[in-house]
């Protein structure tokens, strides 16, 4: 058990160190660093194959069978279950108010296990994780990596996921329960998320000339805006706009 924890910490440290030492050798607007692109493209094709023949049809059937309120209730529940972790990360990112709101929402919604929002703060959801927290502390994303079945990530993202798993307050329930909970919820969450974003994902998947490049761009733009909400103190209109503005102004 101790060895396993030590191993996790060592992997984590090496991932963080690699991410922070890495030079962002990017040549695209979304700042994606993709040194193993051929491998990633192969894994992406595999993931798309899996999606086309399993996840997408299941999600379509799920969308057909499940009423929208049920899909929303499940989404709310999955967000709710991650709220303590999000609150912890908000705190580490210096967003005290957000952490307080998260804990308040979590406590109120215990009554419904998060399936229905009793707090009256519909639409206000915080989803902070260690990937963003490391980003706030100016640790680079490291190389982009496409993980079989799980999708896109970066070295920092993987380190963040390990950290999230290590410090999730849900661990207080006991390792066995958490493993059981995660193994039950993960497939449902995957189908629910795929069903929820059916139009958007299919638009990128089927209407792109190079779907791999578009998915990568969207992933990095999202990552950048999630991290930038702390780094830019003002209420900027859009968080990627700095790079986009510079791009337009330079190329005028």
């Amino acid at each position, binding site marked *: 058990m101790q060895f396993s924890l030590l191993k996790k910490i060592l992997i984590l440290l090496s991932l963080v160190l690699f991410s922070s030492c890495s030079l962002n050798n990017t040549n695209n*607007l979304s700042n994606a660093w993709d040194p193993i692109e051929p491998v990633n493209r192969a894994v992406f094709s595999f993931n798309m194959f899996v999606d086309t023949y399993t996840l997408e049809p299941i999600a379509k059937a799920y969308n057909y069978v499940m009423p929208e309120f049920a899909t929303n209730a499940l989404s709310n529940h999955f967000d709710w279950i991650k709220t303590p972790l999000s609150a912890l990360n908000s705190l580490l990112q210096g967003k005290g108010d957000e952490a307080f709101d998260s804990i308040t929402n979590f406590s109120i919604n215990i009554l419904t296990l998060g399936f229905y929002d009793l707090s009256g703060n519909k639409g206000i959801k915080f989803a902070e994780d260690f990937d963003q927290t490391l980003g706030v502390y100016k640790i680079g994303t490291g190389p982009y990596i496409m993980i079989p079945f799980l999708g896109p990530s970066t070295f920092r993202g993987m380190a963040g996921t390990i950290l999230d798993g290590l410090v999730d307050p849900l661990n207080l329930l006991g390792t066995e329960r958490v493993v059981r909970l995660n193994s039950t919820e993960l497939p449902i969450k995957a189908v629910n998320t795929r069903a929820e974003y059916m139009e958007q994902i299919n638009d990128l998947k089927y209407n792109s000339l*190079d779907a791999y490049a578009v998915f990568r761009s969207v992933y990095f733009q*999202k990552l950048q805006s999630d991290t930038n909400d702390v780094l830019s103190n003002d209420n900027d*209109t859009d968080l*990627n706009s700095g790079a986009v503005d510079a791009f*337009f102004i330079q190329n005028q």
Partner: protein
Amino acid sequence: MLSLFKINRKSFILSVYFLVAFLLTSVTFTNVKADTKLFNEAKFHVETMMEDIQFLLDVGKTDADQGRILLTKLLDKYFDSLQIAKFSSMPAWRKATPIEKEEFITLFEIYLVNLAAKRFDEFKDVEYIISKIEKRGSKMLLVDGHIKAPGNKRDNTQVVWRLFLNEENKMRIIDIEIAKISMIVAQNDEFTSIIRNNKGKFSSLIDVLKKELYN
């Protein structure tokens, strides 16, 4: 010199101060007035376009061909397809030959119509609420707002329109950011990737577009 006009030094300095202050105030006032005019123009541009999109979607439901004609007109009226084509293919655009550029623009305009036909569905039966307008540099404006569609998944989605004053001083849209994802950045990443994977040849992008549009 000052004694010639019987003005003492103190009065002269005071007069200069007043003059400078007056000029600065006038310049600021003129700028504010110009900005307000631009902001109103940008607001009007986006609002009328949203109305036109709703009309277009209604027409498109019953008559696809007519919908497509209207869509082409709408893109021409509200968007700057030349700038979008240029920015989407930077930095390779700079190295392209004039013939390649011309061919690319023609293909890109058709591609853009196809893309818009699919993406404008986002705005079907929704209301767009403008929350603020910002100026970026001397020629760019951001119209920030969100989609209002109670009970719909798209409710509260942030949508930002990036407008640009073109060479003819006409306001045109060059980018849409939906939920903080810039369409032009994604487009640029896609085109750059295609060109890079084909030994940096701009013509490869033209070939891919031709294949997509005509096969």
